[in-house]
């Protein structure tokens, strides 16, 4: 009966698909390719109107096999994808985009550019939301490639001896600029993560001196609440402001916001140094907070720079004997877990073995925060003195001398 035939047909199709899947997951690309040809043949006889479009399956599996198959070449891949573009009309833009990605990853930038500009001119019925998004991405990537060409021309011009003689190159460069700027500007308005596009667009604007626009773009990218909380957005803004010699105050305010969303960002060291240099008491207080917060994170555990920042600031405070309460406030929320997290005997041993300068900075902090009897400090001062390291001897003296500070912090 026809129903039975249909279900059998469906079953065998599914079985074939699972064989392909199995072969691919075991890296048997040749076997998978053979099964795929059967699968494609079976589809020629398939008149069922299923929701799931088999053309997408073939496109995905086919391109995966061609990426790994030992006998495949770029030419074959291209011809396969061209067929797929006509077969999977609804996914045309996606296929084009992926094709361009494949070309880009194989260094075929010109071909990718052609592909993207061809896809840009494609029109088919009413665009769905998904297709609209894909189209915007295609334009953005094309813009990115325009930017690459622009950048190349720019380098030629900058490195050529005779400044402004090369008019055609300059004109070409400007046309690249216009094309790139137009499409990049378009996509970075939509909420998303657009790091490469934003960077390129800002670079273009900066070159042509449109600093206001650049600043506005970066501000929008960092502070628009519709965008995800991307730390890079703040970093780009900070770097832009720094490049243009903005005031310390505005730099600090940018980094302060970055500190609030990502206290573990690597820029926190710069932030700390900047704040320490500041004469304002408020900023110095913040500096201590920033460095303590950064060292809370597991990723910073062995960061010598951060520990030396903390050690330096603690040393300053202890010597001046002013603001010991700042340390006390920071320490109060940490004293129940920092000793086990940073200053255990096991870590003392390991730090000593692996990184002497780290263990020195940490020993100083431990000596002040936990007193001269803490395990970490005791072990390291013992080891350091045994190894006849002068700085450890000085450290021991310093901690012993400032033991009252410890009593005030812990008290």
């Amino acid at each position, binding site marked *: 009966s026809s129903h039975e035939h249909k279900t059998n047909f469906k079953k065998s199709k599914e079985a074939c698909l699972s064989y392909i899947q199995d072969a691919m*997951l075991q890296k048997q690309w040749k076997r998978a390719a053979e099964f795929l040809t059967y699968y494609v043949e079976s589809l020629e006889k398939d008149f069922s109107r299923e929701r799931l479009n088999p053309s997408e399956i073939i496109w*995905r*599996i086919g391109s995966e096999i061609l990426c790994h198959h030992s006998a495949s070449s770029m030419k074959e891949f291209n011809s396969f994808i061209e067929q797929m573009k006509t077969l999977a009309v609804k996914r045309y833009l996606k296929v084009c985009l992926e094709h361009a990605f494949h070309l880009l*990853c194989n260094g075929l930038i010109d071909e990718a550019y052609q592909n993207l500009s061809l896809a840009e001119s494609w029109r088919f019925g009413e665009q769905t939301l998904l297709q609209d998004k894909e189209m915007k991405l295609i334009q953005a990537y094309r813009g990115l490639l325009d930017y690459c060409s622009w950048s190349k021309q720019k380098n030629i011009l900058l490195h050529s001896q005779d400044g402004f003689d090369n008019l055609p190159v300059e004109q070409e460069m400007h046309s690249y600029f216009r094309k790139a700027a137009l499409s990049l500007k378009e*996509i970075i308005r939509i909420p*998303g993560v657009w790091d*490469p596009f934003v960077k390129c667009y800002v670079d273009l604007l900066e070159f042509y001196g449109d600093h206001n626009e650049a600043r506005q773009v970066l501000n929008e990218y960092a502070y628009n609440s519709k965008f995800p909380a991307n730390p*890079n957005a703040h970093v780009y803004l900070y770097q832009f402001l720094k490049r243009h010699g903005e005031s310390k105050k505005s730099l600090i305010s940018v980094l302060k916001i970055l500190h609030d969303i990502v206290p573990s960002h690597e820029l926190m060291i710069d932030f700390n140094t900047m704040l320490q240099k500041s004469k304002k008491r408020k900023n110095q207080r913040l500096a201590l907070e920033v460095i303590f917060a950064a060292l*809370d994170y597991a990723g910073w555990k062995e960061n010598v720079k951060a520990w030396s920042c903390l050690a330096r600031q603690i040393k300053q405070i202890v010597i001046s004997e002013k603001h010991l309460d700042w340390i006390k406030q920071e320490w109060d929320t940490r004293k129940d877990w920092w000793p086990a997290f940073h200053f255990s005997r096991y*870590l003392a041993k390991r730090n000593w073995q692996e990184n002497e300068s780290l263990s020195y900075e940490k020993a100083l902090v431990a000596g002040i925060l936990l007193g001269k009897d803490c395990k970490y400090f005791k072990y390291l001062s013992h080891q350091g003195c045994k190894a006849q390291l002068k700085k450890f001897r000085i450290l021991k003296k310093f901690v012993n001398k400032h033991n009252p500070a410890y009593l005030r912090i812990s008290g």
Partner: protein
Amino acid sequence: MDFPGALMPAYFGAGPPREGVGPAPAAGWGEHGQVLEVLPRRRQANTSFMPRRGRKGENWAPADTAAVPLLPPNAGCWIPLLTPQDIIHHGILHKKLWQGKSGATLDFTKQLSHFFVDHPEDAFGTLGQLLHQNFYLGNSKLRKQARESTIRMTALMEEIDRLDARRGCLRQHLVPRLRWFSHLCRDWLFEVPLNLLADSVHEELLLQWANLFFDDSPTGGALAWLPPEDVGARMGRLVYPGGQALNHLYFQDVVLEDLPYAQGSPVQFELNGRIRQVAAACADGEDFVGIRSDYHCGVWRVPGRMRAAPTPLQVIHTNVPASCLTVSPHLPGELSVCTQSGTVYLWNIEAGLQRLRRDPQTMFFRDHSPWRWSDFTAHPRVLSYADRTGLQCLDSRDPERCRFDLFKVGEEASCQQGERVVLPMYLGKANPFHHLVTTQFSVYVLDERLPMVPVLKWEHMMKAPPLFAHLTPGGPGRSHKVLLGTSYTQELLLLQYQGGSQSACQLVGPPQKLHSIASCLQHLPTQLPHHHRLLQQRLGAPAAGLAAVLHEDQMQESLLVFQLSEAGDVFCQRLTHEVTQPPQHPVPVSGDKAAAAPGSSPLPAAILRYRRWLKALSSCCREHPQPPTFSQKRLFTCKELKEPAEPSALHQRARQQLRQAMQEGGCIQRWDILTAQTPPVPQPLESAEDPDALSARLTAAWSGDWGQWWEERSSFNMVQRQRALRERRRRQKRAQGRRSLSASFTSSLTYQSELSELSDAGPSLPLSPATLPQEPGSPPPSPVPHEALLSSQSLQCRGIPKERRKMLRDYLSVCVEGYPNLLEPSSSQPSIPLSQSQTCISLSQSHHPVPSSQSQPSITVSQSQTSSLQSRRKRPRMGF
């Protein structure tokens, strides 16, 4: 730890997940996702791009053809898992009722009756004790005084038995006595009010049914590997559950080699419940192992140096089942515990429990699942908290206010509709800020510093949601290996990813499927079919845990993957890292792997392992009692089972033939031909005394007419016999005038016994006599002149008393009606009607059609015979 300077482009939208097509069959293939420009090292260098997915990864090839047992099979009889058949109703009636309707019916009554039978004390304890004097279970009649206060239950029990036997019978009527009894005592007999009990049983049944589709209790897995303190050591420790109910915790030293092996006997702890999860982490040079069972969580400390005994530290008891236990990689002796219905605790060995959150509602939208999870993050005081709808991070110092959303099933991560979080895992060893989240469709990598936007997403295409995951971190420049495992389908998938600090995250290399435990079945020695099935069941048990360790031996890097099944067996497999020399011409590095192709045989060492494992399995299975067999005593009474005083002639002959066949070395099948040729037919020579039922049955079986005999015993021909009896009764009534008293008495007696025999026929077994083999060489049934047999002379000469002759004639005539060709001339005595199998087929044909393909050839025969006999049917009666 740096944050990548530029991330892959991605759209970001808020809102509910988009409508998807569900698990698409090939959704994970053929996509690069996005590309990112790689900054050129030199100024003049060409720009190059890197894809989010599709870059070549490390090449790991399976070293063996299948997983190999690491430890001897888990002793203790393994209780087979619940199957849908156990709780689904599969009566004939229900099949008919539900035909065309989709959806299974759970057999609620069966489960309830199981409860009554298995736990009678809990079900009827009090009233049973109070009333036991008023219920009488004996066979004899009650005396008059006793009758006032005592009910005789025997008849009721019989009714119940009969009811059970007739289950599915279309003519099942409600028995008034049972109805009356249940109405009378429904309200007071039960210890637990019936409604309440029924509700609980029903609830449990639904839960079990849901668990058959997806059981989240083993989430996280119950297998952990504790690496040695010094990296180069070749020995580590495996922590796994075992024992009959997986309630024993084992710490086993394992030596890492090509085929890792256990050294020494394991350290063992007996626990108070089935171990659901084993979590382990190393903090401050010591390993902490957390054990989760349903209502208890415990923590053990394992000192870093080898051979130091693990010490149990603390146990907590929860009122609601715990659904998660994770061990802090930052601080020693710190764990996080989640219970179903949404409470999270930070558990410190010294400080005790700190409740961080308590909310029975799910976070982002409503979901019915009570499953919760929690793990640690890059900040030792911040914990992640997950339910099926997403992940949040809570600061334990101020859990009410300091929290942020890390992942949400929604448009933010471009999820599909119906997608749910299955397993979150902290990937701290690869990158302190990374988290893995698996759903039934996809796998995500999240960065705490960029919440809500996955830095990596891939549709894993696994057949079941991955409940287990394991991370093997790669060093600088190497990829991190993530293993995903499912429970019911035993799938294992190896993914590689890299980046996350200097550059954006990338999924590298194609995903790779590893061997499942069940895959080793084809490499085991051939088994007897039922052993094979048992083995298949055992090896196919759902996976319960996953662990892996990277091992380096003489420049050869290998990844050893351990797998635990719910039967408590631990298997392992090895993958070797194939370092390819940079190719001169662009030849893809990942060619076809012949080693993984099916059909290749395992290494000799592995074969030895398989044999040893099988031997141990069969020996530990033998210790347990055999499955119950049917007791003959219930089928036959003692009297029936008693052997006849001396073997009948038939027996002797049979023995003789058997002996002859043995001497000749021939086969017994030849008998049929023999009987067809030389001795006419091995006639059932009845001994003089009345044959008992067993002998009759054996005799029938001997002469090949067992089907017929069965047919006669069973209810198929009940109608005909009833009709015959009725007919005879009528005639007897008519003839009563000229009958002697004794004759009428005997006849009525026989009628009684006939009736009881009919009612004793018992349940109709699903054995269709039509499928019984037909003797190929049996002589064609010869039409017999019945008149000769039924004449008074012939009866007289057989020594039958005069008053019985008529009855016999009646009876025989009726039998002839039912069995047209039963009377044979050589038959010395018309005892139990015997017939050929053809008739029996024709009868069964008329009562219920059997599959035509089976009985097609015999129908024609039987039909022709019946038609030829039909003309003769009435003659005996007419002659009378």
